């Protein structure tokens, strides 16, 4: 395959029976070629649950971001949201593949993404909320990426070298996602009367989920996120929303409790794979 054009090189018949039919297809395990042996003494169930939860967060958030394509306020923004979604989808593939290896029950990324029911998903509810206006997208991204960045930062020292490596790559990507959301928060908060009104309303909507994200978190992680958020809101001239009195009214996504919105999202995400479970792409 000496051709210098990727599409032409794809069209060449390969003696190895290349099954790729378009750029980016011919999917294989995203951890293919990585040393995936588990360190001795590592708790498999714990690692499975951790990778599954973080993988589900990324998969569901990526799907919501993809829904912005053709709906974003400007072309550059559409490209940005799609790129952020693509990063998260990449993280989801790596994490679900790792979850499958840790589980050791023969399930790969596809089985985990396409053939689980909503109650088997462990994503935080913040990720599955339906899209609202653009301010809502920015507010959700601000909370989600600030939290995820802080979580992944700590996982770079995890005993599982594969999870640690996935986290280290993710941190670099999340730094861009968080900056993106933070800069838009400032722009909208410090913009027109209308943009400010919408940004405040959006933050009020997503803020109760902060307690859910930080549920059981170590104090240092909690402080990190609160410092970041305060810094952004100060720069935007926005008030800090009131903390939620309790998270009792929210479904606990980490325990498999979800809003009906997740079933709807998964219905769309899983429809093609479920229509023809034997298909390859």
């Amino acid at each position, binding site marked *: 395959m000496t051709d210098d054009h990727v599409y032409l090189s794809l069209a060449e018949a390969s003696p190895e029976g290349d099954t790729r039919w378009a750029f980016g297809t*011919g999917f*294989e395990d995203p951890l293919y070629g990585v040393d995936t042996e588990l360190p001795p003494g590592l708790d498999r169930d714990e690692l499975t649950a951790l990778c599954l939860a973080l993988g589900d967060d990324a998969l569901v958030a990526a799907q919501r971001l993809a829904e912005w394509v053709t709906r974003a306020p400007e072309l550059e923004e559409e490209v940005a949201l799609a790129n952020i979604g693509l990063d998260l989808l990449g993280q989801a593939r790596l994490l679900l593949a790792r979850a499958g290896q840790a589980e050791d029950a023969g399930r790969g990324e596809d089985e985990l993404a396409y053939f689980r029911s909503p109650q088997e998903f462990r994503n935080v509810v913040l990720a599955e909320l339906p899209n609202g206006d653009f301010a809502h997208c920015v507010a959700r991204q601000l909370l989600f990426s600030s939290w995820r960045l802080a979580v992944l930062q700590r996982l770079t020292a995890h005993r599982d070298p594969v999870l640690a*490596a*996935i986290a280290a790559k993710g941190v670099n990507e999340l730094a*861009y996602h*968080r900056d993106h959301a933070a800069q838009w928060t400032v722009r909208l908060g410090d913009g027109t009367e209308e943009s400010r009104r919408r940004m405040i309303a959006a933050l009020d909507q997503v803020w109760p989920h902060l307690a859910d994200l930080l549920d059981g978190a170590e104090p240092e992680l909690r402080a990190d996120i609160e410092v970041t958020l305060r810094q952004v809101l100060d720069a935007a001239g926005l008030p800090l929303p009131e903390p939620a009195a309790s998270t009792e009214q929210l479904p606990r996504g980490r325990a498999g409790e979800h809003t009906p919105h997740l079933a709807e999202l998964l219905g769309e995400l899983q429809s093609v794979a479920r229509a023809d479970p034997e298909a390859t792409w």
Partner: protein
Amino acid sequence: MVTLLQLARDTAARVLDPELPMLTLADLGVLREVTLAPDGQVVATLAPTYSGCPALAEMRADVDAALRAAGFTRIEVRTVLDPPWSSDWITPEGRAKLAAGGIAPPGPAPRRAPGGPVPLTLTPTRTVVHCPHCGSADTEETSRFSATACKALRRCRACREPFEQVKEL
């Protein structure tokens, strides 16, 4: 005389990046290592750029095919995630090729200790990036995200042309 190892290295190093075809995988810093075992097995190691980069499968297939075409039969293409790929790994030659191809090369990647704090950037970055078309330093960032995960979008205020820049990562 070219040794087999050299042949394997040169062959893998010449494979072009699917999304930045002016660069080889070696220029991009994606090709980390090529080894040859006494039994003739070639092992090429790639470091993916972004987690979601759809080009990784292409890169792997292209390296495999190039080595096969060069006469190697036992080939393994491995992926290494640690340390994560950095735009600092793009070679000086790669940077020159990017600029010649109309894409501004990245500045130095942010230096962060593993697991260390990641500072927040609240205003568009103000680094000086030269326009790859006219050379002017009077350029501005229009979006940190562009047609591929690895590039940002900029605009030159002198010649008014938009252009892409490989992001610092």
